[in-house]
């Protein structure tokens, strides 16, 4: 009986500590994406971001124009591919569809409630809408978490033969650099959330607070993909892939590229194309909003955009 009482007492104290630690973050609504005032602009003006909405009835020429579905990473927003859209607008012969992941671009609570399947849903919605409108040259560019999301769609066969021409993965995450995420199931309830160090320019486009529930979803997703890659699977026929991976990435381990290279093959069994990049940035294609950008970073961004463009034009 005494032992039972002691156990109950310890349990109550433990729960009190846990609940005390799990309090909500202090959100600045005026400056943070986490708040209830700043939302992703694609929610107000989808026609400026989604090709399927922007072009009601595509012409025969438009249907054969390369369309690239550009998808941002976890805790980011459509902002992450704005520079690529500007690059493509200058080229005039590529259409860019910037997809906002489910649960993103809204409030902290919306972000917290979302699952990785929710994040994935708008990718398929835009892809299906483009297919329905008759686009024949659909491509994909994903940053960070968008990469395991599209790999999961491939593994499940939701993107079939000739469904996409080229898939570009920029700093894909399969293994996180921050290894404490591996025990987020234990430490998460005590921490409640993780805090990012955004620059002032990033605050309105990237969540400042990352709920532990969301980080656990990320770990669930990366675990599924890591195991799928461990078993191995192939791209659908008619689809090519190129991976650009920063070597000193503070968010997604460079070894993620090794796992993708070993586990994901072209439809004929040959190796996919990988380029390891000497950079310490995560998502080397996004420089806007960052502090201390060097000429080396700009050169990398230009190189990757040019390389993607050349592949799309082949």
């Amino acid at each position, binding site marked *: 009986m005494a032992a039972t009482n002691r156990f109950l007492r310890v349990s109550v104290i433990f729960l009190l500590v846990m609940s005390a630690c799990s309090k909500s973050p202090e959100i600045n609504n005026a400056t943070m994406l986490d708040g209830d005032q700043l939302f992703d602009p694609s929610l107000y003006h989808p026609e400026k971001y989604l090709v399927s909405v922007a072009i009601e009835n595509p012409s025969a020429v438009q249907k054969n124009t390369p369309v690239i579905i550009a998808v941002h990473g976890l805790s980011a927003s459509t902002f992450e591919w704005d520079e690529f859209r500007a690059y493509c607008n200058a080229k005039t012969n590529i259409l860019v569809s910037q997809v906002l992941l489910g649960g993103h671009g809204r409030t902290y609570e919306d972000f917290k409630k979302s699952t990785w399947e929710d994040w994935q849903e708008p990718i398929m919605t835009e892809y299906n809408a483009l297919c329905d409108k008759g686009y024949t040259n659909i491509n994909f560019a994903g940053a960070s978490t968008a990469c395991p999301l599209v790999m999961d769609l491939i593994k499940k066969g939701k993107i079939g033969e000739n469904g996409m021409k080229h898939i570009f993965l920029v700093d894909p995450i399969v293994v996180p650099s921050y290894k*404490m995420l591996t025990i987020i199931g234990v430490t998460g309830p005590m921490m409640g959330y993780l805090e990012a160090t955004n620059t002032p320019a990033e605050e309105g486009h990237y969540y400042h607070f990352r709920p532990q529930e969301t980080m656990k979803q990320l770990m669930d997703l990366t675990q599924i993909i890591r195991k799928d890659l461990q078993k191995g699977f192939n791209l659908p026929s008619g689809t090519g892939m190129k991976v650009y991976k920063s070597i000193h990435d503070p968010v997604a381990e460079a070894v993620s590229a090794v796992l993708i290279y070993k586990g994901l093959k072209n439809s004929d069994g040959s190796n996919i194309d990988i380029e390891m990049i000497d950079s310490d940035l995560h998502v080397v294609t996004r420089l806007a909003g960052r502090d201390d950008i060097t000429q080396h970073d700009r050169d990398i961004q230009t190189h990757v955009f040019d390389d993607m463009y050349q592949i799309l034009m082949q």
Partner: protein
Amino acid sequence: MDCERGEIRWFCIIKGIHLLSVNTQVNPVQTNIEMKKKIVLSILFISCVLCVQAQSSGTNDGWLGEFKGGIRIQKAQKLYWENGLSFDFSSPKIADSRIHLGVSYVTTRLGSAIGSNAIKQDNFLISAGYHFRHQKQFQPFIRLNTGYFHADYEEDIFDGLPDQAFLFSIDAGLSYEFRIPLTFSLSAGYNLISGNGSSGPGTLFPVFYQMSLFHTLLTKK
């Protein structure tokens, strides 16, 4: 490292750990050579301790201690199974059998990498553990481990990635000595050095769990 007495043996242990821990920050060209040196030092260090133990038996009442060998199964939290061999030595002459010295090798080659695309990686470890209740069958223990980690990325394009590291970990668990010459142990540990994106191999994860099953190979008490 030609030590013969108990005090000097402790000096050897400390010196061995020191030799393994120095120069952990080396340039990439020298890393391979330095790591190989550390492996050799690890083997020399353990051999020294075991040999001195054996040599000292000539001046006393024969060989004194217990030497066990067996299998180890290791799982990194959210990553691979790494399995291999482990050896454990204890003696009444070393802290009254409370201190256990060990050598082990675990690898994904005998675990997750069998028939899969998992990265082939090897862990070479030496360890020193302290066992509580050392005369009982059921013994809680804590242990310090050090050694060398290597991951094989197989392709030249990944040559720029960190693929080796100095290992330093701590683990704690429970050991059970059966009445037959078998010992079973379970532990959970933490790698104090792990990959973090900017340094260290990416598949060196912090939290791990181990299960070992030893058979007593030599014993004289």
